[in-house]
C-alpha cells in the first residue's frame, strides 16, 4: 500500500451541506411492506436521507458549504490558490466541475482547479492530494470540495440501493501552518472489483448502455445502464478483506496505537457493516463516529459530513486526533491519521434547490 506523511498542513474548517428535502425510509412503502422496512432500517441504521430535487447538483451543495466556510474563516476568495473537487456526480461529462466552481465562488484566475473522480475513498485521496500540492505552491490556502448526489443515479425501484443513499457535499479549508502535527496516509487500489459497484453505461466504454442491458435485466427495480449497480455481498467481502488491515497499517505508520486515536471516522456505508467492522478490527465502539441515522450513505461526503455533524463540541473543547478511512467503489481505499486542532470550524448547512450561489 502507498504510504505518505505530510507535515506543516492544518485543516482550518470542515463544513457539510445537504439538500433540504428529506425522505423517510419508513415511508417507502411502495418498495417494501412496513414490517420489512422496519427490519431493514434497524439493520442498516438509516432512518432518513437528504435527497436532491430535480436540477440540484453536487456542486450546488458544495458551493454553499464553501462560501459559508470562507466567510466564517474570514478567508477572502482571492487568497485561495488551489481548488479540488472530488465527486462521481459532476455537473457535466466535461468541463471539470472545479472550473465551474472557481468562477462561481469568485476564486482568482490564478487558482489551480481540477476534479478527482473517486467515491467512498475520495475524501482521503482528496485530502492527501490537496495537502501535498499545497506544500509545493507559492500560496498557502486550498479548498477541498467533496460530495455526491448518488440518489440521482439510482433506479427508483431498485431495492438493493434505494434505502441506503443520501446526498451531501462538503468543503474543507486547508492551510500551511508550520507547527501542525504530521498527517499519515495509507492508500490502495484493487481495480479487479470495479464491476461490483458501477454505473456501466453513458461514458466512454459503453455510451449507449447496450452491453449494460445484461445487468439491467437482472431485474432489480428496472435498473438501467445509467443507474448505479451494487453487489452488496461483494462490497461486504471487499471491506472485510481490506479495511481491518488498512486501519492497523495507518496506526502503525503514524507511530501510534489504538488508544491514541480520539475518534474513528469511517465512510458511513451502513450501520451493520460499520458495527461488524469495528468488532472485527477490535475498535472501541464508543469512539466510532456514526451519523447514518439522519443522512444515510453519502458516498464521498460521508467522512467530512460525519466530522461536521458530530465533532463540533469536541473541537471546541480541544484537539481531536481522528483516524479517517474511506473504502468502496473502485475498489479504492484510503486511510489517514489527522489531528484536528482545537477551534477547527464545523457546521452542516441545508441547501434549498434553485438558489444558485454566486460570489458577491
Amino acid at each position, binding site marked *: 500500500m502507498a504510504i505518505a506523511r505530510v507535515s506543516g498542513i492544518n485543516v482550518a474548517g470542515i463544513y457539510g451541506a445537504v439538500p433540504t428535502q428529506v425522505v423517510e425510509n419508513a415511508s417507502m412503502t411502495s418498495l417494501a411492506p412496513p414490517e420489512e422496512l422496519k427490519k*431493514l432500517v434497524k439493520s442498516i441504521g438509516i432512518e432518513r436521507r437528504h435527497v436532491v430535487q430535480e436540477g440540484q447538483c453536487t456542486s450546488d451543495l458544495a458551493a454553499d458549504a464553501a462560501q459559508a466556510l470562507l466567510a466564517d474563516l474570514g478567508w477572502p476568495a482571492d487568497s485561495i490558490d488551489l481548488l479540488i473537487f472530488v465527486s462521481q456526480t459532476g455537473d457535466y461529462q466535461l468541463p471539470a466541475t472545479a472550473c465551474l466552481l472557481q468562477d462561481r465562488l469568485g476564486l482568482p484566475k490564478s487558482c489551480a482547479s481540477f476534479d478527482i473522480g473517486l467515491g467512498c475513498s475520495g475524501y482521503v485521496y482528496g485530502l492527501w492530494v490537496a495537502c501535498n500540492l499545497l506544500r509545493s505552491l507559492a500560496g498557502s490556502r486550498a479548498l477541498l470540495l467533496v460530495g455526491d448526489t448518488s440518489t440521482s443515479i439510482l433506479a427508483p425501484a431498485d431495492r*438493493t440501493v434505494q434505502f441506503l443513499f443520501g446526498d451531501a457535499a462538503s468543503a474543507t479549508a486547508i492551510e500551511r501552518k508550520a507547527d501542525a502535527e504530521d498527517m499519515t496516509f495509507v492508500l490502495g487500489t484493487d481495480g479487479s472489483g470495479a464491476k461490483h459497484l458501477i454505473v456501466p453505461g453513458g461514458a466512454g466504454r459503453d455510451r449507449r448502455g447496450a452491453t449494460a442491458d445484461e445487468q439491467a435485466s437482472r431485474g432489480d427495480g428496472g435498473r438501467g445502464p445509467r443507474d448505479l449497480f451494487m453487489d452488496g*455481498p*461483494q462490497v*461486504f*467481502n471487499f471491506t*472485510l478483506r481490506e479495511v481491518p488491515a488498512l486501519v492497523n497499517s495507518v496506526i502503525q505508520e503514524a507511530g501510534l496505537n489504538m488508544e491514541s486515536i480520539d475518534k474513528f471516522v469511517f465512510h458511513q456505508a451502513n450501520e451493520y457493516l460499520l458495527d461488524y467492522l469495528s468488532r*472485527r478490527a477490535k475498535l472501541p465502539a464508543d469512539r466510532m463516529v456514526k451519523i447514518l441515522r439522519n443522512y444515510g450513505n453519502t458516498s464521498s461526503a460521508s467522512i467530512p459530513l460525519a466530522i461536521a455533524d458530530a465533532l463540533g463540541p469536541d473541537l471546541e473543547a480541544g484537539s481531536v486526533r481522528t483516524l479517517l478511512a474511506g473504502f468502496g467503489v473502485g475498489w479504492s481505499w484510503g486511510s489517514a491519521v489527522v489531528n484536528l486542532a482545537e477551534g477547527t470550524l464545523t457546521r452542516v448547512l441545508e441547501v434549498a434547490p434553485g438558489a444558485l450561489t454566486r460570489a458577491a
Partner: protein
Amino acid sequence: MTRDEFLKKFEELLEVPAGSLTYETELEQVSSWDSLNVIGYIALVDETFRREVDPEKIAECRKVGNLIDLAVSA
C-alpha cells in the same frame, strides 16, 4: 466447528426456532433467507472461520445443507 453446530448458528442468524431447519430444507421455503441475511451469513462465516465466501457460490445454493457445506468446507 461441526456442521450441526454451524446449523444452530445459522438458525440463530435467521431468527427461526432451534431445530426448525434441516440440511434438506429448501432455501426458497425459508422466508427470512433474504439479502440482509446473505450478508449476515458472510459475516457469520468470517467470524467463525476467518474465511471469505464467494457470493456467486452462495447464489448457487439451493438447500440449507449447501450453505452449511460451503461454510464448513470453503
